[in-house]
């Protein structure tokens, strides 16, 4: 465990080497450094994790150096390994490593190969910093660091202006959330005098009673940060556009890891959310609404990556719903399975896009079942998980747990369970639609070249993980195996259920499975049925959020900028100068050299002064 610092340090070191020496080490060198650093980090994580589990301590922390200390306020660059950070660190390094290997094939023709791997390494390092940080300021460093890498990688192909626009949008929209989070940190500094997680959470419990306005404010502001990074309502608009980046980026950053940072933050600060019931309810409602809105939008997309993007927003909505009802470990369970199957789906989509020469429109695909059988197989496995097909897919185990707990956990309500079930129905529908359009039907675009082993092997590994990860937890109906929740127990409180009967759970599972089957059937029958055009366009644009924000924020800002380019304040000073100059002209005009004007002036002045004196005396 003493080597824990290497977990974030190795990717940072890799990035540094790639930035400084990319020209000198050649392409094999770039691959060795880029993939090697992440592979080693994954190895260290596994060893450290093994030691951690053997040791039986609830948390291990490592002090690296003192970052800043002002008076009594002190922040260290300290890392913390516990069940929660270990779960995240494992997924980040392991999935990240597979995606790096895949990228060596996907990006092999790109002239900026080294820059790509430098940014990817930097990203993994920042993300690890985020989850391993022992205090909120260091977490904020990772938090903003992943924002930066997201910006760099979305705009990776910088020559197209629309990629740049998407990159800036991602950075700016998430920065809105980050600013809310920063204000939460100011409040915590003011009231607890610290930002160290253990201290903050401990003092929060003694400082505030449940529902205290201060802690509610803090929780809402943290939620603001979380919805920004995790692309939840109302800051979800950046994620679909983020698909402008290379597909491995979408897999790593915009599906498997970075966008779950908000989930991590809320789970990490669960004590604060427990003290703020209003905010926790808001988390649940955000999740429920987001999962439905994004699900409907995914249903009408034509670009395969945008389907997956909206489905990511929707799946993270499930995680938020779980957090909101107090089913903390269920959210983490869904994070793990989602990381595997969504990375699988994105990389599978990438293989398709790569094979079809950067074609992303699903209506120009079709029939790829025969020409890309390997990709079809793994994509099918991923889709089963996404659609939560019972028993054989990991997605079912995790999503079913959320659906069940949405109704029965301490903060659960029937309406949440209803939203979750409806969401599962839509998910099955859009997943089926995607499968049918891409892999069935008539072939429309010819396959240029098939993906090589460096792309296929990571896909197979992810396919295996997408299936096996589900067995970390089994529902009551299937033997009630709770390894993951037990493991997370020291960090995340146990889920409290209201009224749990196994029969009811059976019933709910049957209904959900039935609805999924129905969704598949309907989609299959109505694949090419006409859809109301306006409604379709509205859903496709993501419920008009972009247009609304454009009118409300972007346009006014740009218009004021355009109007006030010359700085209106300056007119005060140039006006002052103009008045002075005008007075000067007037005065110099009186100096005409004509004696009778001067005499007249003296006489008028004398009369005026005398009149005033007389008038004042007579008062």
């Amino acid at each position, binding site marked *: 465990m003493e080597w824990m610092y290497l977990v974030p340090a190795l990717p940072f070191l890799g990035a540094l080497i790639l*930035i400084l020496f990319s020209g000198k080490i050649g392409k094999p060198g770039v691959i060795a450094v880029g993939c090697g650093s992440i592979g080693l980090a994954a190895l260290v994580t596994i060893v450290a994790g093994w030691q951690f589990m053997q040791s039986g301590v609830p948390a291990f922390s490592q002090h690296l*150096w*003192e*970052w*800043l*200390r*002002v*008076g009594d*306020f002190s922040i260290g*660059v300290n890392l913390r390994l516990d069940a929660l950070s270990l779960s995240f660190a494992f997924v980040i390094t392991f999935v990240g490593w597979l995606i790096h290997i895949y990228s060596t094939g996907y990006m092999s023709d790109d002239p900026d190969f080294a*820059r790509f791997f430098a940014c990817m390494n930097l990203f993994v390092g920042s993300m690890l910093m985020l989850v391993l940080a022992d205090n909120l*300021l260091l977490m*904020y*460093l990772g*938090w*903003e*660091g992943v924002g*930066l890498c997201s*910006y760099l990688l979305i*705009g990776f192909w*910088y*020559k197209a*202006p629309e990629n*740049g626009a998407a*990159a*800036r949008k991602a*950075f*700016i929209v998430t*920065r*809105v959330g*980050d*600013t809310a989070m*920063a*204000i939460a*940190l*100011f*409040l915590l*500094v*003011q009231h607890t005098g610290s930002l160290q997680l253990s201290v903050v959470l401990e003092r929060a419990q003694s400082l505030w009673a449940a529902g205290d306005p201060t802690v509610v404010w803090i929780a809402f502001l943290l939620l603001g940060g979380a919805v920004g990074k995790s692309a939840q309502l109302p800051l979800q608009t950046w994620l679909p556009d983020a698909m402008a980046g290379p597909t491995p980026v979408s897999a790593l950053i915009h599906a498997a890891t970075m966008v779950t940072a908000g989930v991590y933050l809320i789970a990490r600060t669960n004590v604060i959310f427990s003290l703020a019931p209003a905010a926790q309810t808001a988390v649940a409602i955000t999740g429920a609404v987001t999962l439905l809105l994004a699900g409907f939008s995914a249903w009408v997309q034509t670009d395969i990556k945008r389907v997956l993007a909206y489905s990511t927003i929707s799946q993270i909505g499930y995680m938020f719903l779980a957090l909101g009802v107090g089913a903390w470990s269920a959210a983490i369970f869904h994070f793990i399975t989602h990381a595997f199957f969504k990375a699988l789906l994105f990389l599978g989509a990438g293989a398709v896009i790569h094979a079809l020469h950067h074609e992303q429109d699903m209506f120009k695909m079709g029939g790829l079942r025969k020409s890309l059988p390997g990709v079809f197989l793994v994509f099918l496995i991923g889709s089963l998980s996404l659609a939560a097909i019972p028993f054989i897919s990991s997605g079912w185990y995790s999503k079913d747990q959320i659906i069940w707990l949405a109704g029965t956990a301490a903060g659960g309500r029937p309406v949440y369970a209803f939203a979750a079930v409806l969401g599962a129905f839509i998910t099955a529908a859009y997943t089926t639609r995607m499968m049918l359009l891409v892999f069935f039907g008539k072939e429309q675009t010819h396959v240029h070249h098939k993906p090589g082993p460096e792309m296929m092997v990571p896909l197979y590994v992810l396919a295996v993980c997408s299936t096996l990860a589900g067995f970390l937890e089994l529902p009551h109906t299937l033997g009630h195996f709770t390894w993951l929740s037990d493991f997370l127990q020291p960090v995340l409180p146990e889920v409290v259920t209201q009224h749990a009967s196994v029969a009811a759970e059976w019933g709910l599972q049957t209904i959900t499975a039935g609805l999924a089957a129905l969704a598949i059937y309907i989609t299959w029958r109505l694949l090419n049925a006409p859809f109301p055009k306006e409604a379709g366009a509205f859903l496709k644009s993501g419920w008009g959020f972009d247009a609304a924000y454009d009118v409300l924020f972007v346009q006014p*800002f740009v218009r*004021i*900028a*355009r109007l*006030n*380019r010359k*700085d209106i*304040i*300056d007119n*005060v*000073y140039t006006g002052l100068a103009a008045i002075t100059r005008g007075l000067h002209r007037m005065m110099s005009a009186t100096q005409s050299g004509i004696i009778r004007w001067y005499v007249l002036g003296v006489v008028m002045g004398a009369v005026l002064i005398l009149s005033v004196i007389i008038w004042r005396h007579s008062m």
Partner: protein
Amino acid sequence: MILLAFILFPLAGAFLAWASAAVNATLPRWIALLVMLAGLVLAVGIWVQPEPASLAGADWRYVYHQPWMPRFGVSLSLAIDGLSLLMIVLTFFLGAMAVLVSWNEIRDRTGFYYFNLLFVLGGIAGVFLVMDLFLFYFFWEVMLIPMYFLIGIWGHGRRLYASLKFFLFTQAGGLLMLLSILGLYFVHGASTGNYTFSYAELLQTPMEQGIGRWLMLGFMAAFLVKLPAFPFHTWLPDAHTEAPTAGSVILAGLLLKTGAYGILRFVLPLFPEACHAFAQVFMLLGAIGILYGGQLAYAQTDFKRLVAYTSVSHMGFVLVGAFAFNELAYQGVVMQMITHGISTGALFMIAGVLYERLHTRELEKMGGLWAALPGLGAITMVFVMASLGLPGLGNFIAEFLILAGSWQASPWITVLAATGLVVATVYSLRIMQKVFFGISLREFRLKDMTVREAVMLLPLVIAIIWLGLFPQRVIDTASKAAPVVAFQYKDN
């Protein structure tokens, strides 16, 4: 004596450089560089020495005191504490960079150019060191006139307009400060019978509320213009844009800091009551400056003008932090003075490097330069990120400390100031997009950084990352300074 060297080196070097131009036109730049490096070595030497044991009051590391005009209570009194030491290090560091950026840019009247450059730097060093208000005003003016020449002679297009505007604004503020200094002199003399300009003694002036407030406003007039704070900022975009690169670097990196330094050194300790009374007003001005400057930065199409308005925005943080009256915010302000000097100085240097290649500052005429200039692009990315306050870089430490401190003084103004972080993201990313990304308008055949350019930019990159990851060294140094003593006194 060592303190006198910080002022005399540049001033003597200035005359030497001027004279040496008669021998060889390239000699002045070598003299200037050597003088700056010597000063830097000396300043860093003081910094790395073990710190003296903390004294009861502000602990001055070195004091130099020589009576000059005892009849009027004027003395040649210099002293250095943590705050001045950091500013002196910054002065000579950026001064050396300013010489390097001028290396090839200035070919005309090099002797007189380096004379002015060194004279400005000597004046700045004086401002950071003197502990006598008469001399403070003297050095305040010494900074002004050579800068006027630098802009007016070696500047770009509208240089005469810009230099005159700079002069008038600063002079108007300076005269109000002179009135206040004289007012303070007489108030102190009348009540104690001891007529003196000595900073240490004036600190003990018994002050009536009304008079104290007016005197404070007189000082603030000079410092708000220099900072610059909204709405006294309009001289800055013109001066920055038209100045030669070194002039912009010194303006942004150092001259603006004298305003911040003045607030910390003089206004807060001399007029604590008046400052508390006006704190909300000044903090609000700062927050408005952050947003207004950011908005205007976004609107600009001239690279240097854009960076100039980002200065207005960033110096707004200084004003917010200075009037928050706590140590967190104070440390943030000192950090902001240093990091803004480095990051904005670097952005102006980058503008200069681009100008030498493209002969334009228009953003609309750039674009897609990454392919041709990846090295410069990567360095620009670092400073663009610094400007938007990315953690890991020094500016984040500064802004976080300022806002965390000002939150405790005024949450609503802090919220306003914090939205500046979003605005900063908007204008900062626009720089990258307009210059390095997007479609290139023409085939650029450009040379990436030369060795000289790398030598002047890389130390700044290292400095800004070092300040972001290991800021404690600076914080420790800055904590041994007069304002901190004042805050601690207030807390008790």
